[in-house]
């Protein structure tokens, strides 16, 4: 037995939309680049949850393989993103994104 037989698909859609919206809110709300990366992870997780819910609803394992690839890309993204942040921190001594506007000036 699976939860998708009992719980309507709309509830999963609503939960994913709420989590995605929270991620967007975090990206707009915070200035620390590391927390912004975390909020991007939250958005990726909301999408993953929706993919798994649809996969269970359609009884199709292909969507779960997609989630697998999304996780792989998320892990690579975090590794490179944090390496870039460390390189930036070494030069500017801050992870505040408002100071990272050298291209503008």
């Amino acid at each position: 037995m699976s939860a998708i037989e009992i719980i309507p698909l709309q509830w999963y859609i609503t939960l994913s939309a709420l989590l995605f919206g929270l991620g967007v809110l975090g990206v707009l709300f915070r200035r620390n680049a590391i927390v912004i990366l975390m909020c991007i992870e939250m958005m990726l997780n909301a999408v993953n949850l929706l993919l798994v819910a649809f996969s269970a609803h359609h009884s199709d394992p292909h969507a779960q393989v997609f989630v697998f690839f999304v996780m792989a890309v998320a892990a690579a993204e975090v590794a490179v993103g944090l390496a870039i942040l460390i390189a930036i921190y070494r030069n500017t001594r801050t992870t505040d994104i408002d100071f990272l506007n050298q291209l503008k000036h």
Partner: protein
Amino acid sequence: MTTTEILFFILTGIAFFSGAMVVMSRNPVYSVLYLITMFFAIAGHYILLNAQFLAVVHIIVYAGAIMVLFLFVIMMLNLNKDTEPHNPPWVKIAAVIAGGMMMATLVGALKETATPLTKTNYDTTIGTVERLGNVLFSDFLIPFELSSALFLAAMVGAVMLSKKNIH
């Protein structure tokens, strides 16, 4: 109300509360810890949806690898409550209004659009390693091999970026 529904609501509550706390916490270390709580709640959702393999991989990748990366970087850069930069209040209010409107639009638009087929014969074995492995190594063989190249590139890139002096 069945057990599954109660579990769904508990997990949803934990996920939403910790997601909100990731955004609200002033200390970045607390943000990471709340993020891990959210990852565990989502892994619980995967188990409820009979995606056992994904739940285990999710915990290993996120709560294992990504949490360590985030915590390591935050502690290496010595970020804490005192060094945390803050937006001026009007930016925060604007962010809450914009994010809240986006959330309301997404929920409102997606709530009605889905037309769930009323099925009776759900296949509950799609989340097993056997079924996923069959799909992964037949239909998705080339993307699977390409993702290894992606990881190699990411690894080389991360090492290159964090090296001190590159001549």
